[in-house]
């Protein structure tokens, strides 16, 4: 049984329909990417899974239990964490306080200390900046803090929304190395990326979203073979309509 099953999900922002029946699965231990151009419905899918956005129709099942229409705070407790697009660090709170809130749903005093140590090993910069306000960190540091904050909750499934957005190439490399490292440690990850080329270097499988529906799904090799990604993403004639020739 897959860890996460999304079935026929419909969602809208007011009158604007954003998802038209998205279905996808993530198995335990997998690193799966959700690819697509701006407005394809990637973030909307994550928000609907997380309960931030109430889906109009469809179901989300996590570890055999339906979590459709649950509140985000309940879904976090079940073991899903979302690193939101744009990082959303609490800028007026210190790095320490950001991490402490990350552990809100599953706080245990002893484990918390050990978790902090682990985060400092993964992200040494966070130890350096521990008492500084989150808003003073650079974009890349904020992204690390956002990921560390999510990991503090011990998620069974980690969802990352555009972690490389707005980062320098060096920082992007670091983030992708980190994602690979997390996967090797056994984390299950659902990754949303616009940078399809980079994402396909690290993921096991990918879904290609277009206009709020899954256009194509398969392993990385299948995706690379069958879809002319460069054409879709980097200035192809059909980039806007997203008609992928199979």
């Amino acid at each position, binding site marked *: 049984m897959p860890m996460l099953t999304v079935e026929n999900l419909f969602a809208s922002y007011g009158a604007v329909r954003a998802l038209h029946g998205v279905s996808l699965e993530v198995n335990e231990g997998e690193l799966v990417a959700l690819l697509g151009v701006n407005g394809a419905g990637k973030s909307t899918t994550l928000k609907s899974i997380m309960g*931030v956005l109430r889906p109009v129709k469809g179901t989300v099942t996590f570890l055999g239990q339906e979590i459709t229409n649950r509140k985000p705070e309940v879904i976090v407790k079940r073991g899903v964490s979302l690193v*939101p697009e744009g990082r959303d660090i609490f800028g007026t709170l210190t790095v320490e306080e950001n991490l402490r809130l990350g552990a*809100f749903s599953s706080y245990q005093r002893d484990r918390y200390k050990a978790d902090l140590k682990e985060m400092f090993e993964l992200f040494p910069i966070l130890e350096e900046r521990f008492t500084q306000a989150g808003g003073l960190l650079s974009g890349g540091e904020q992204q690390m803090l956002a990921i560390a904050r999510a990991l503090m909750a011990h998620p069974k499934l980690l969802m990352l929304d555009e972690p490389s957005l707005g980062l320098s190439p060096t920082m992007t490399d670091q983030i992708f190395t980190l994602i690979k490292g997390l996967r090797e440690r056994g984390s299950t990850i659902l990754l949303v990326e616009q940078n399809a080329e980079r994402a396909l270097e690290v993921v096991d499988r990918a879904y290609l979203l277009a206009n709020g529906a899954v256009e194509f799904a398969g392993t990385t090799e299948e995706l690379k073979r069958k879809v002319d990604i460069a054409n879709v993403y980097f200035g192809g004639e059909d980039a806007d309509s997203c008609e992928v020739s199979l």
Partner: protein
Amino acid sequence: MNLEFFINTLSLGSLYALLALGLVLVYGILKLVNFAYGEYIMIAGYGLYLSATVLHAPWWATMLLGVLAAVLTSYLTELAAFRPVRSKSPMALIVTSFAVSIFLQNVVLIMVSPRARAVQLPALFSQTITIGGATTPVRNLLVIGTTVIVLVLMSFLMKKTVLGMAMRAAADKFTTTRLMGVPANLVISAAFIISGFLAGISSIFWIGRSASVDPLTGSAPLLIAFIATVMGGMHSPTGAVVGGFVYGLLFNVLSITLPASMISYRDAFMFVIVVLFLLFRPEGIIRGGYTEERVG
């Protein structure tokens, strides 16, 4: 500086700071200027009155019950009135706060009386004391002391406890705070409960000045709290506290500098100052802090 003026300003500023802080806490999280806030103060006044006349409670118990009445009213109005409309438009929330305000005024109007009731406070409140040549009501010193204690407690709560962290985070980014597993209802209820507590505490001193309470008692302190937050800055508790003290200072400066014939226009002068603030520094003295993200 004249010591009497100093004590007066500090005590008035303390009271206004407490009033403003209670209003801004809810604003920070719900982005709602709660116009029913004055009614929590009024209800606390009736709590003082009823516990003394009906229950014949000793003075310390009347204060406890008065504050408790405000806390309960604040919490219950959140549950019954604000929670159901929370995800609707900001307008719906504001109109709801007016409705709650009118409802509570009419509850006491019907259940108690439209006329003012005398509230007995300990004699100590109205006694005067002379320190260093300055004569001042003991009440003034009590409000300063109480405010210091409350501000220290609040600062501890907001900075050192996880609930405080969650409330600060929620005031900044509400949805992201929920992504940490912080229940939306927890932070919002906490904000209303603390807001009610501050309304109750300030009510003791507000009512203490006139020693009476009527259904419209809440409108003046609400206005003061609102103006203080506009001047100090709506976007942080610090702004509210600063605004409260600035209001107290300006008010007292006007009181001693205006000629006797103009003193009754003191409020008009205050409003002119507020208008100047809105024109030249609409974000208030203390900038930054809360964002405008609303509860979804």
